[in-house]
């Protein structure tokens, strides 16, 4: 093939080099700094972390502390971690259920108005996430418009305290924050599905639903997986949504714990350790994504 038997692979290597060097210097090195902090010590005066650069001198003290946060007498992180996974699972399924039909509609049926829909779908990217959340907080107040509307249509009899530490608010907040990315990825993927394949299905007598299930869905499998990976992974580390929409310990996520630790000088090293553990946990999906892309790129030729 064009690339594999290419004698002058230096061309492709040259293309990749600037990025590789950049990542090496400005990502791998700082990442090593995270390891050095997690395996490091604390300055006695300022209680700030002292990175230990030599791997041979790394201590396990911070990891032990994190371990004790999970297991043991003063453990508290376990339920938070489980809760995070539950929230993320529900939020991702919800996101998919909302994003897929919308993306599907825009790719298949929007016709002339595709540009308009696309612009509207991309719009959330252009305004500050914070501003959108602030607007939501305002809408969700006890006497805000949401409650008023719900009471008016008699869906509820009393205003609900949406911002009072409710899981549903946090989950919907997660969906709201990450769904634009999912929609964009789904759009891109669904757009690539050849219309003629669908027509062929129709020609063969499948009705709409069956066409969808037997043609479109399998063809979009890779897209769905990519989209889920791209939205779910960052969601696990999210702390902002809970802080803004709930502010209660009852709904806190693992991201909150890490954030809090990284902002407390004496716990920064533990925060680094916990981040590393989280990243290890996310390793499997990440590797899966990388190998899927690799496979897909080989197959596509």
């Amino acid at each position: 093939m064009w690339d594999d038997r290419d004698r002058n692979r230096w061309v492709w290597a040259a293309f990749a080099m600037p990025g590789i060097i950049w990542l090496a210097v400005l990502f791998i090195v700082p990442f090593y700094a995270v390891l050095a902090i997690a395996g490091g010590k604390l300055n006695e005066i300022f209680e700030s972390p002292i990175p230990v650069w030599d791997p041979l001198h790394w201590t396990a003290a911070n990891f032990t502390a994190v371990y004790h946060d999970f297991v043991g007498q003063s453990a508290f992180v376990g339920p938070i971690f489980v809760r995070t996974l539950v929230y993320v699972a529900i939020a991702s399924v919800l996101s998919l259920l909302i994003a897929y039909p919308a993306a599907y509609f825009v790719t298949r049926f929007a016709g002339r108005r595709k540009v308009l829909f696309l612009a509207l779908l991309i719009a959330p990217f252009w305004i500050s996430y914070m501003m959108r959340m602030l607007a939501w907080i305002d809408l969700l107040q006890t006497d805000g418009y949401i409650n008023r509307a719900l009471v008016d249509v008699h869906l509820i009899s009393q205003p609900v305290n949406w911002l009072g530490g409710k899981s549903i608010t946090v989950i919907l907040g997660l969906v709201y924050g990450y769904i634009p990315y999912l929609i964009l990825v789904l759009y891109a993927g669904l757009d690539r599905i050849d219309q003629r394949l669908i027509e062929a299905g129709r020609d063969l007598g499948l009705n709409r639903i069956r066409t969808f299930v037997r043609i479109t869905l399998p063809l979009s499998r890779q897209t769905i997986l990519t989209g889920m990976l791209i939205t779910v992974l960052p969601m696990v580390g999210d702390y902002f949504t809970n802080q803004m929409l709930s502010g209660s310990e009852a709904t806190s996520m693992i991201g909150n714990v890490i954030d809090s630790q990284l902002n407390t000088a004496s716990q920064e090293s533990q925060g680094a350790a916990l981040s590393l553990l989280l990243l290890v946990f996310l390793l499997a999906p990440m590797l899966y994504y990388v190998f899927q892309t690799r496979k897909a790129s080989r197959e596509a030729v």
Partner: protein
Amino acid sequence: MSVATPSAPEVIRPIEADPVDDGPPPGAPPPRPDRRRWQPPWRNPWRRPWILEGFTWLYLIWSLAPIAIAVLFSFNNGKSQSAWQGFSVRWYWGDPVNSIFHNPMLRSAVEQTLRLAVYTTVIAVPIGVAFAIGIHRWHTRTSTSFNFVMVFSYVIPELIFGVAMFFLFTQLFTFVHLGTVAEVLGLVTWNFSWPAIIVLARLVSVGSSYEEAAADLGASRLQAIRRVLIPMLMPAIFASAVLVFASVVDDFVVVDLLSSTANTQPMSVIIYANTHGGNGGPALNALATMMLLFSFVVVIAGLVAYRWMTRGERGSSRHDAMTSIAGM
């Protein structure tokens, strides 16, 4: 796809008369209406998808209503961000103390945001695109591992990345002082994955057949890349540039940690931590609206540029540019 019709062996058949339908034989009951001619509307596979469309509109309203509210309140006459007190442009230039135009902190924030967004986009997109092209074609362990590193940089929580960068610039690479340079370096690294992932996805679907065709026609590799591959990737490049720009405009964590004095604090930092009482409130909405405007302008400009660049090559479809952009 053209279905190749297998050629049938030549067979000579006499031409037969088509059967003629003279109607029912006399005496027989009249034919029943052909049920297959009338289908209930919901069986029509080509009907308009009302449900889907309604659903999409509902989603869009849910997604955009807060934006509309935020923009609306930037024109609020009072200090409230929730009680409408009349229309005014005071937060943009009217108010002599607290408007964006008059408040030096807000004004420099706008400038800094633009500066960071432009620098970061201009650096991250070319490097990211080149990286994607290289990784896609160069199959070695190195490239796979750096592909992984790139994905890793997407997934890592931003705060830990920011803290790591802070350590980097204050302890290891101290010749780089905190400030705009550090911010740009951090932002490029953080947003590097956008062009890389998007262009890679597009490359995967495009394949290398077009370049091979170009090579068959006599183009050198670099020519093929320049004249065939890059134009085909333009939508993806454009999309990733938009995303990088928007991401930088909204980024807060990395920038705050790597900022130095007030004039290196962009809008996002100000929005997150601003003055209250007379100085805050709708001025923030005004800032956010400006952010929206910038992104919008950039996208429109990019769109126009794209259409101009591909003016001779576009297909007949009117909305080709926009759709191919998102076609990534």
